[in-house]
């Protein structure tokens, strides 16, 4: 019942915060969020699962209760964690706590509603990563969208309405495509499955239980469903060309929403790709390996080029997420232990690093009220510690060794280079790796213009140092980034343990 407790604390906390006075909402939400954070760390320490949750693995903290019947299929409350989902749950709880802290300075209206929504997102996200029944999972999946829509639409920047609706409609349409595809799959499986439990469906798929539907044969149906679900998740990741909602959402979203959006919400897309497409359809992965690798490479290079053209710090970090998530897709399609494992690691790592970058940009914005590269220079003069952390985060983004980003990228590159499933894998790897040059280009260029050089900022007030609570929360992230860079096996071991059943014992 540990996972239920985790979700319940966040959900009840959300309700309590909703009705609490604005004055204390921030501190209250922080105190409440410490409970799931501590609990999830305890789960991490007490984790005793092994194998893959969908493929006969030993689940940790498993709990299953029959819920209802739809036709011949039963739906149940079914949650549990394996080595893939646990790190993401920990990432979620930690980032939510830090996002709450980073809201203290910028959020000064309707605080109780704001913090309530953050806790509501937290509950939903934990649900997404731990649910093992398709219906339950889908409820959580959709439940994430609403509070994020509100966070952008209410507390966002000048074009918040446009950005929020674009985010909501775009990802919702994608969800619909994905949902339809999945239901077609369940019907196609016919009598092979009797429930919406993902392990049952995954096992049936891998045992070749797909019959066909609407006149389509099994393999054809599998291809249609694979593509449909891939497109559905591609929007969430986002993969080029479905990425245009992301920069708009980021630019308009308040800092804490950006932290969660880049840090965790994007990972829903890659997590779902891994859980559904790459676990249930090994044959289709092989068939579509080259086009998927191609769009992964395009996402990396094109996303980085877009980042290079931006002058808004937040847009730079937003586009660089497109680039970084391209690496994840490349690692997944490599279908090797290091490729898929590195991709999963990169999800966590990118969550930490992009969270840190958005926080640092937010801290500078709080002080300067501008995010335009051209509006300021020499910020290191006024905010030395915050800028120091920003520089460290930027180098983390560039993949500096002994920080988590390097490990994620290196293992992806290594795992992809020798991939047997993906043809021309050395070529794809080498092309994608050029991203590490472009990322250095746009981040160093931005640093040169904003934090270095003679101090220049047109304000009618004196810019002072960053608040201690912001420094502290950025420091926690930086510490985690370095910890995972030095000791990646803290999570990589459990990740590979859960990956190997997917790719068949490990290539």
């Amino acid at each position: 019942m540990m996972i239920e407790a985790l979700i319940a604390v966040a959900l009840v906390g959300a309700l309590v915060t909703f009705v609490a006075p604005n004055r204390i909402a921030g501190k209250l939400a922080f105190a409440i969020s410490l409970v799931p954070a501590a609990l999830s760390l305890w789960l991490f320490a007490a984790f005793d699962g092994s194998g893959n949750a969908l493929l006969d693995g030993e689940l940790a903290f498993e709990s299953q209760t029959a819920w209802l019947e739809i036709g011949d299929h039963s739906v149940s409350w079914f949650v549990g964690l394996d080595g893939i989902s646990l790190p993401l749950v920990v990432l979620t709880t930690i980032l939510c706590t830090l996002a709450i802290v980073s809201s203290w300075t910028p959020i000064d209206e309707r605080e109780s509603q704001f913090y309530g929504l953050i806790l509501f997102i937290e509950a939903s996200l934990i649900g997404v990563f731990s649910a093992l029944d398709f219906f339950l999972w889908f409820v959580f999946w959709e439940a994430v969208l609403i509070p994020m829509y509100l966070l952008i639409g209410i507390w966002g920047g000048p074009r918040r309405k446009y950005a929020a609706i674009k985010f909501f409609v775009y990802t919702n349409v994608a969800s619909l495509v994905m949902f339809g595809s999945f239901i077609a799959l369940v019907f196609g499986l016919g009598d092979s499955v009797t429930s919406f439990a993902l392990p049952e469906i995954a096992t049936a798929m891998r045992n070749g239980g797909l019959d066909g539907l609407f006149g389509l044969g099994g393999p054809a149906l599998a291809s249609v469903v694979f593509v449909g679900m891939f497109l559905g998740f591609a929007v969430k990741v986002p993969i080029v060309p479905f990425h245009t909602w992301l920069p708009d959402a980021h630019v308009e979203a308040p800092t804490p929403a950006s932290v969660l959006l880049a840090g965790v919400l994007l990972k829903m897309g890659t997590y779902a790709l891994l859980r559904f497409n790459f676990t249930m359809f090994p044959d289709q992965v092989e068939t579509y390996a080259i086009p998927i690798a191609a769009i992964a490479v395009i996402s990396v290079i094109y996303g980085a080029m877009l980042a290079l053209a931006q002058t808004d710090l937040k847009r730079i970090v937003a586009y660089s997420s497109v680039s970084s998530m391209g690496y994840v897709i490349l690692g997944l399609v490599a279908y090797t232990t290091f490729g898929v494992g590195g991709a999963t690691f990169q999800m966590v790592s990118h969550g930490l690093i992009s969270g840190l970058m958005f926080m640092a940009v937010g801290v500078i914005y709080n002080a300067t009220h501008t995010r335009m590269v051209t509006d300021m220079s020499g910020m290191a003069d006024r905010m030395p510690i915050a800028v120091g952390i920003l520089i460290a985060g930027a180098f983390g983004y560039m993949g500096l060794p002994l920080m988590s980003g390097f490990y994620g990228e290196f293992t992806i590159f290594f795992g992809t280079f020798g991939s047997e499933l993906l043809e021309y894998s050395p070529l794809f790897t080498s092309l994608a790796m050029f991203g590490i040059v472009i990322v250095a280009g746009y981040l160093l260029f931005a640093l040169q213009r904003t934090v270095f050089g003679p101090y220049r900022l047109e304000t009618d007030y004196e810019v002072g140092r960053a608040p201690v609570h912001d420094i502290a929360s950025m420091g926690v992230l930086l510490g985690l980034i370095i910890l995972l860079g030095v000791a990646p096996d803290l999570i990589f071991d459990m990740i590979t343990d859960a990956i190997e059943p997917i790719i068949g014992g490990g290539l």
Partner: protein
Amino acid sequence: MAATATGPFGFAPAIAVFPLVAFVITLVFGRHLPKKGALPGILATAGSLVVSVVMFAAVAGGGEHHTTLYEWTSGAATSETMVEGIEFTFGILIDPLSALMLVIVSLVALLVHVFSLGYMNAEGETGLRRYYAELGLFTFSMLAFVFADNLLMAFMFFELVGLCSYLLIGFWFRTESAPSAAKKAFLVTRFGDYFFLIGVVAIAATFGTVGFAGEESFVTAAETAIDDGTTLFGFDAETWVTITGLLVLGGVLGKSAQFPFHTWLPDAMEGPTTVSALIHAATMVAAGVYLVARMFGYYALSPTALAIIAFVGGFTALFAATMAVVKDDIKQVLAYSTISQYGYMMLGLGVGGYVAGVFHLMNHAFFKALLFLGAGAVIILMHHEQDMWEMGGLKDKAPVTYYTFLAGALALAGIVPFSGFWSKDEVLFDALAVGLEQPVILAAYAMGLLAVFFTGFYTFRMVFLTFHGEPRSAAAEDPHSVGWAVKVPLLALGTLATVAGFANLAPVAELLHADITFLEFWLDGKYGAVEGLTYHAYHETVAFEEGVIGSETTTMLLSAGLSLGLALAGAFTAHTLYNVPEPSRHTTKLGGAYRVLKSNYYQDEYQVWLAEGLTLPLARAADRFDQTVIDGVVNGTSTISLFGSDRVKRIQTGIVTNYAALLVGGFIGLLLVLGYLGGWFA
């Protein structure tokens, strides 16, 4: 291997740990420490030096040390050579090469820390804590790079020294130029490291190991693959070794500032002169060349890769030397001379002259650190003036600076018996010997030989303009004084620059038939070595024929005579032109060539164009495409459903309570529907 793991070698990790501790202490407490953190740095580097010397002595006593400290990660992977599984570790490899390099790096680091007391602390500089912390982080990374026992670990610390270089070049971040130079340095080397990383990944994916030494090393695996005629990634094994070797070489060319990646180094002179001495002359720039020496067994397998190394080296030696001739800033002269000298090391290694290359690496570390620190002393004397045309006549006013600088200059120019002569001569001799059989190498040799003349010329032009003649400015009339912290490192390095060459008097040994080529014995494992990592082992692998003119002795003497003659000719030309009371510029005699040289062969222009004229417009075009076409389709789709959204808009009241009600209501509604379907209410 295991037998020697105890004893003195147990302390090996301390070499890197000391500076790391100094970094942390300085970062956290630096503000409250006396001298703002200089003392932890000095103590740490002194500690590293002591342990390094102990390691050196232990190797001299026949020991070697190869151990794994920490498993970074491991996992299942199938490599091309059918090795199952791979481990990525941090380990220590102490053999003659790394022991020598550890002593060099920790010694120069210690001297630069001491010198900083006189150079940085004395000037009322702010940000000293940052300076010493970054210097500590650099020393840690560099030392860990040197004793790395595998290619991935080497790459990781290679990147970290790049970070420190970036931070220290940009130390004076309030200026416009320093951050720009720092960015350029990191970007250009990153471009090289891109190829390096592909090389690391390729080697790991090919051989299932990244170790430098032993049976489990990728070098041994590559040898086996070539012997067995294995096909690797669709290529025959030797071609694949060449490809991967050249990929790794990308990182080498970047860090060691070889053509065409040399452009960042002159700009890097924006950093404090102490940083130039430590990082951009003696140690970090050496990392590239050191890496080639470290994995020399791998390059030895590929004559093509070696020939390319030699040619690039010879070309860079000449190319950079010609640019140094027209520079007015004393640090710029030294920067181009650094590029040129690393070219010699590459030339030496490329022709299979492992000893010669390492010998020059050692000598250069001493005399170039000396020259940079000397230039730092001159800059103190000159009240922060760096233009040599504003100097003159400092000879009598600052004798310690002058004589030590002169020792460094003689070593750089390659005048007998100063250290640079012996090692440069050995490089050129090895190149000549191979060149007599290989036309490409002969061309590389010719360029290296011609560069000797330019080296002699620009070195003494610098000495004469700076120290001789009449003072040409008020600052030169009345120079500032320098303290002991400046003089002690200069004297120490001056002594080394003078005598270090005696470590390997190859021509003398040849003439007298005496066993005095100590460095060769050292690197050949005569005292202690890891099996396979010896000069002899490499020499047997390298497939180059060697020729002689007459006998080996006459060839050696001929080569030495030629290079010494050219060096003296260069120095003499500088003497006639500039060693006069009132020297004047002679640049008009160069005509159009002057403009080309002064513009550095337009190398910067085309690289800046690549970044700002090509990549940036391309990025902007991509951005426009993204905004109009891709996002246009998205927004266009939504316009079609505008009618629907117009209705939906009405629920956007902006009142959160309404939203919350909708949220909760929707959730409950969903539950009810599901519940109904599930038959709860039946």
